[in-house]
């Protein structure tokens, strides 16, 4: 198990002096802790193969000019380069597959050019949304990109993964909220992409639209060095309601009715299934105890002016009641919604299941530290019940056989920007006991993931709504999901990145270079 990477590595030796010329010695790190600590993200990680993912050298640029010089150096020397913002993604976009240069943008965290007339702000990729909103608050503005990782994730990573926001049904998701951005391409050219040529426009129609190409590319097409964001007036009112149901089917139908209410202030609906309730009852100390007939839950959030939200709240309470829901009261509703970021980040431990194999034998019920896999398929409303059953069945099979997994239940979140109906971000949370990982268990895990992703595709969905489909296992199915579009993507990748230096190995884009001179 013990193996030691050299410091510096031969690759680091090759580029070190030039990197120091670009950045200064303090911003070029080759020590082992700097490299090991910029390797994993929260998604399950093959700890037993940590060394496979450790970068050779870490750079901490502060300007676009520095990023350009670093990328040119990487391109010239054919050194892999992996951009990393907060490192909080739930796919492994920021996990290096081929070592190389790890470009950490946390020092590119300046806020420029707040435009209180056109409601935009220009920021570096290392800016965190919570900190940005602290800055915007005195101006009566806010930036509503609000993922579970809101207290820590950063604009650059939100773009790289094409993130989803908990209040996106009202305000849109990252791709809607980033109006334009500056991108350093893999060959070192700098372009600006947005709607047309203006940086602060929300709609334009000049020629082809390139902006969306640079959302969700997971660092394979370039590095965002600057972004212009769309701001909103701070909402005057927020309303959250949690409803309880005696069974999943009633909750599912109620979820559909709530999301189709037609209310413009609707920010999102979240459906908790029975297994999620079981998990919260079992292992969440902040869970407020509910009677046992509470089997499934819907959470609804409204944002807007008081004139919008107050009557809309009455409508929501009526719909919830009419469709078989019982309002869980202000304490649960307001408290749980306010704690949403922390609540969705708690799974740090799981339990070993009775009757499960592997290391769980004889240790049923024992609590162990577990990493969190959060599946995030995009699935149409009509398919939710079937997908839910299949996913739990897959998880059960792997839990029972290998003993190192735990099922923490499912959420379904309204998925569309400004359109909270029709499709859902569907999440199954699975715990993985990483301390027990070895090649066999890791292979089992990736096989499990592949089965889960296959179900999403079989039901006309997508492997991922917001994290990215770069994770081992599911990534194999990307060509199947995308068909001919994947061939076009490979052409684009090879055109923009002729030497395959940008986050190489991701998304099977290596195929674009097969047979190349």
């Amino acid at each position, binding site marked *: 198990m013990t193996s030691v990477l050299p410091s510096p590595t031969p690759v680091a030796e090759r580029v070190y002096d030039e990197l120091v010329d670009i950045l200064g010695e303090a911003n070029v790190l080759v020590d082992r802790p700097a490299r090991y600590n910029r390797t994993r993200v929260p998604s399950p990680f093959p700890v037993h193969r940590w060394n496979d993912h450790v970068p050779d050298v870490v750079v901490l640029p502060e300007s676009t000019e520095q990023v350009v010089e670093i990328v040119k150096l990487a391109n010239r020397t054919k050194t892999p380069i992996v951009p990393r913002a907060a490192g909080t993604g739930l796919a492994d976009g920021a996990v290096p597959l081929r070592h190389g240069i790890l470009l950490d943008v946390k020092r590119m965290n300046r806020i420029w050019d707040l435009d209180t007339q056109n409601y935009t702000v220009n920021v570096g990729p290392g800016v965190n949304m919570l900190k940005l909103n602290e800055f915007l608050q005195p101006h009566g503005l806010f930036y509503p990109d609000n993922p579970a990782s809101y207290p820590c994730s950063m604009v650059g990573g939100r773009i790289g993964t094409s993130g989803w926001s908990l209040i996106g049904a009202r305000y849109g998701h990252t791709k809607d909220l980033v109006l334009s951005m500056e991108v350093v391409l893999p060959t070192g050219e700098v372009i600006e992409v947005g709607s047309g040529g203006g940086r602060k426009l929300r709609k334009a129609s000049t020629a082809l639209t390139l902006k969306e190409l640079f959302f969700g590319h997971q660092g394979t097409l370039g590095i965002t060095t600057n972004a212009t964001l769309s701001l909103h007036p701070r909402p005057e009112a927020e309303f959250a309601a949690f409803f309880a149901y005696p069974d999943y089917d009633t909750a599912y139908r109620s979820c559909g009715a709530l999301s189709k209410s037609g209310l413009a202030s609707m920010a999102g609906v979240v459906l908790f299934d029975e297994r999620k309730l079981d998990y919260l009852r079992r292992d*969440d100390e902040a869970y407020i105890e509910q009677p046992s007939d509470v089997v499934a839950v819907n959470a609804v959030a409204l944002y807007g002016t008081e004139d919008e939200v107050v009557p809309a709240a009455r409508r929501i309470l009526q719909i919830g009641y009419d469709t078989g829901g019982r309002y869980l009261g202000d304490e649960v509703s307001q408290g749980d919604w306010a704690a949403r970021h922390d609540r969705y980040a708690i799974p740090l431990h799981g339990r070993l299941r009775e009757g499960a194999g592997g290391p769980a034998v004889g240790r049923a019920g024992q609590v162990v530290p577990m990493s969190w896999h959060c599946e995030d398929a995009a699935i149409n409303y009509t398919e939710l019940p079937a997908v839910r059953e299949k996913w739990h069945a897959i998880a059960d099979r792997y839990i029972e056989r290998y003993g190192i997994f735990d099922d923490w239940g499912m959420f379904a979140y309204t998925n569309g920007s400004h359109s909270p109906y029709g499709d859902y971000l569907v999440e199954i949370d699975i715990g993985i006991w990483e301390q027990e990982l070895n090649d066999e268990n890791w292979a089992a895990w990736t096989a499990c993931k592949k089965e889960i992703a296959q179900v999403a595709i079989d039901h006309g969905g997508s492997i991922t709504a917001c994290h990215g489909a770069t994770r081992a296992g599911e990534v194999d199915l990307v060509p199947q999901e995308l068909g001919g579009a994947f061939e076009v993507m490979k052409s684009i990748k090879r055109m923009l990145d002729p030497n395959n230096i940008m986050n190489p190995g991701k998304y099977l884009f290596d195929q674009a270079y097969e047979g190349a001179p």
Partner: protein
Amino acid sequence: MDHMPNGLGNGKAHEAFVAEWRDKAYGCFSSGHKFCRNVCPVMQVTRNENHSPTAFHANVVAMEQGHITVEDVAEDYVHCTQCGACELRCPNTLMAGEFYRARTRTVDVVKAMRAFAVEQGVEQPNWKRWVEATVDAKNEPVLDVPVSQDNVRNWAKDLDIPVGGETIMFVDCEAAFYRTSLPRAIAQVLQLAGVQFGLMREQWCCGGPAREMGYNEQSRFLAQHNVDDWRAIGAKRIITIEPHDYVHFTEDYPWHFGDDFDFEIVHILDLVAELIDEGRLQLTQPINRVATYHDPCRLNKRKGIHEAPRKILRAIPGLDFRDVDHVTQWSYCSGAGGGLMIEKPEITAAISEQRLERAAELEVDLLVSACVWSERPLTTAGLAQSPQIEVRDIMEMVAESAGIAVEGVRELAEGGMA
């Protein structure tokens, strides 16, 4: 440039260390959400992931896996003020930690790693000098002033404070030798309110800084003397005037001495708030200033003391008090704690500068602290603001408002007042 793991110390010590800490570290490592990062004062200014609370846990796992050694990481662990913000902001602490008996314990991990480094002979030069000088002089080598047992009570000149008694006022080294106006103000306030108290026969450093830097043996040596002195003079109740002392006496002394440590530890702010409540202390003299309060990390984040200072400030007539709530202040710090100021003064200065910028947004002319160690870097940062923001200790304000003329030295720093 290269070195191999396990080249230092012995493998058994390494194994024992990771065996003790690996599961606790894994609770953070396997999650990796990093909500802590934006409240961490050091990360806010260095923005280097090596210095994040998450890295402090991940390194333990990397050590367990045989990838790195204490020698690789020891210097990274200097980058922590032990303020405790990361633990408060951890979703594990908020939602599940107690339930699983696996509460996130970053401060303890940092202390343990520093101690392990010292055991293994991996020392930080300034900390080594500081602790050696402390053990030598029995008090910390506070800058700019002669430090010895001969002048440890000079601040109390002409105040007629007895030595010994059931209640003892313990005076921190920085206050005893450097900002002598503070212990004078406190002593005079207590005298005015009729509180009986005495001083130690021979007061040594509390030993807390040594413990924070990883020098546990030296810490215990100093602590043992103080406890022996307390017992010899019949002390039962210790009034601490400084947040670090309060943490050391309530956490580190019981760690050193177990159940034998049976002294009542009182923090001055709780006591003074009580005196005001009971009408034993009247604040009558107006202080016509515009002020905000800096929550010292160890009071607010480590010990939950944030109501008493606000009650006290609201009792001072004339004061325009512009408060920032204590939860927002989880991300505030002076940068002076945990030995950071001794090894990395430039980072402390940057943290203090950021703190003063936040005060300036409130358009105040006074930042009130309750931690004497914070007041030096905060004062320097306040002088650099335009317009300047003065930094004072809350107990000096209490004394002034109670009509006490306080003598002693308040500030020797550049531009300060002697």
